[in-house]
């Protein structure tokens, strides 16, 4: 029983971070109708930024959120503006050329980092990395609790932004109905650029929050891209609230999988959930089948 509760706690805490990744992916998917296959790679870049700040400037990882998030916002803006948007004018046989482009972007990001930092594992050790406190017999890893708290705070800010500000409302409108939004005078190009930047900075936030409890290597992005997709899919595509639920479900499922099945298969859990939903819940995926 205790083992179960422990696994659930770890899963929910991790789920908070996953939710951030998922929300970023959901926003991009909603507005651009594409899957961002560079999502995990953007997160990885943010992790390296945080790593450098901590290693060479002694900056606390949580403080570097203030640098990593804007940096990734700018990178995201540039990618959308100069690589993804121009493709709308290209007549290509493959309708997925924007998706293919994100693959290329992901490869380049990964390889640039591999070039600079080599392939070895890195981690950021803080004084509190392995600190834990106990409620009864259940242990709470301090960095995970902090990360969870910041993730929740960021999510609340994001909802405020989406619900109350003009730009946020425009993003929601574009996601719901692009043509109508265009007719209402929304500048679609500006919105796509904003959205991709926002998605990238949310990925940055999750990467930075992960760093004190995780390790880092250049190709860490790929698995997280897949996780981000599984989360958005679990959450029912295009729903930001759904992405939160999806993130927590994935976190818990992985935690249970690692506890009760096999540690080595932890990363497969996401893939198996994906497959199960695909085979047994096709009704729940109605949005998927009509793009």
């Amino acid at each position, binding site marked *: 029983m205790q083992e179960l509760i422990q696994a659930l706690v770890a899963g929910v805490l991790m789920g908070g971070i996953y939710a951030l990744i998922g929300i970023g992916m959901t926003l991009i998917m909603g507005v651009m109708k*594409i899957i961002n296959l560079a999502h995990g790679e953007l997160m990885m870049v943010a992790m390296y930024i945080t790593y450098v700040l901590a290693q060479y400037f002694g900056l606390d990882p949580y403080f570097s959120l203030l640098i990593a998030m804007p940096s990734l916002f700018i990178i995201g803006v540039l990618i959308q503006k100069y690589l993804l948007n121009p493709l709308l004018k290209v007549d290509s046989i*493959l309708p997925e050329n924007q998706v293919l482009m994100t693959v290329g972007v992901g490869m380049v990001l990964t390889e640039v980092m591999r070039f600079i930092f080599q392939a070895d594992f890195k981690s950021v050790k803080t004084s509190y990395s392995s600190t834990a406190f106990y409620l009864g017999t259940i242990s709470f890893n301090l960095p995970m609790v902090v990360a969870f708290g910041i993730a929740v705070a960021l999510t609340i800010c994001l909802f405020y932004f989406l619900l109350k500000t003009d730009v946020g409302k425009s993003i929601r409108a574009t996601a719901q109905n692009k043509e109508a939004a265009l007719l209402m005078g929304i500048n679609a190009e500006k919105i796509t650029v904003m959205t991709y930047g926002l998605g990238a900075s949310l990925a940055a936030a999750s990467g930075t929050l992960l760093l004190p409890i995780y390790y880092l290597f250049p190709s860490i992005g790929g698995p997280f891209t897949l996780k981000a997709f599984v989360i958005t899919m679990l959450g029912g595509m295009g729903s930001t609230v759904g992405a939160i639920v999806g993130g927590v479900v994935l976190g818990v499922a992985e935690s249970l999988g690692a506890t009760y099945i096999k540690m080595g298969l932890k990363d497969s859990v996401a893939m198996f959930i994906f497959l199960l939903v695909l085979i047994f819940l096709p009704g729940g995926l109605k949005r998927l089948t009509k793009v």
Partner: protein
Amino acid sequence: MGNTFNWRKIPWAKVLSVAFLVLFPLLVDSDYYRHLFIIALMWVVIGSSWNLLSGYTGQVSFGHAIFFGVGAYTAGLFTTKLSMSAWWGMLLGGPVSLLVGIVIGWICFRLRGPYFALATIAIGEIFRQVAENWISFTEGMQGILIIQTFRSKIPYYYLALGLAIACVGTIALVLRSKWGFYFIAIREDQDAAEALGISSYRYKSLSLMISSFFTGLAGAFYMNYMAFIDPQVVFSLHYISIMAILVGIIGGVGTIWGPAVGAFIMVLLQETFRSSFYGLVPRWVSEAHVLVFGLLVIFVIRYMANGMVGDWPKIQQLWSRPKAVSSPSVSGN
């Protein structure tokens, strides 16, 4: 179909290239170059198969490593588990991979567009992880080692060439038939295709079956030729699945010869970088070869959406700048 190639000009170029490929191992007495060409021919098979499903039928697969890996493991396991010749496994590599293709089609064809693409990635990763972890069956990360049949490269070369010709030839024939029309119709507009009496599910599956069959054969060939496989290589997302896409888009999606051209470009380019331009530049350049691939993807998608073959007129235009080349698009009259 839909090909803007100048057919009057091209046939001799094709005939000459095939003739050159037939004579190549006799002309060039170098195992190094024979090896490169064998690998390139294998990629002709994989790229062309990917192109049939993705370029012609419009179902962009990010998971062709599944079929390559299944073909390779079929051949390998046949030898290690049943101590039969891996050549029997080679015959089975295609059909087994085809069966896997049917199941994957059943799961994935409910999804359209980018969601299909993602499903294929996820399933590809599942296959890799299963092959890594199911040690009693696949030997896990240790991989499978067999004994090569021939010491000379020449038999392998002609086998690869035969496979490549069979694959491209079959695809060319299929595309001229009813199936070809149906594949392209589904790519262009699935709703319109359905309204014309085309079962999109059935014909997507047929396309996937042909595609997975030949990719599986290529995988089984790889097992026989290299004599060693492990999950990280044959089920690799980057080195197989994405490479297949690269071969396709660099040569030209939706063209018969595109992937063949793309395969040679990619393999030679990869080798050029891997060997640091044959030792001409510092070693560190060799580490940049994946980076170069990534940049190439970005460049090709941005500026050469139809690849070398599809955008050939555009490329020719660059050479003969002063000549005003008439646009191939059809006017309203």
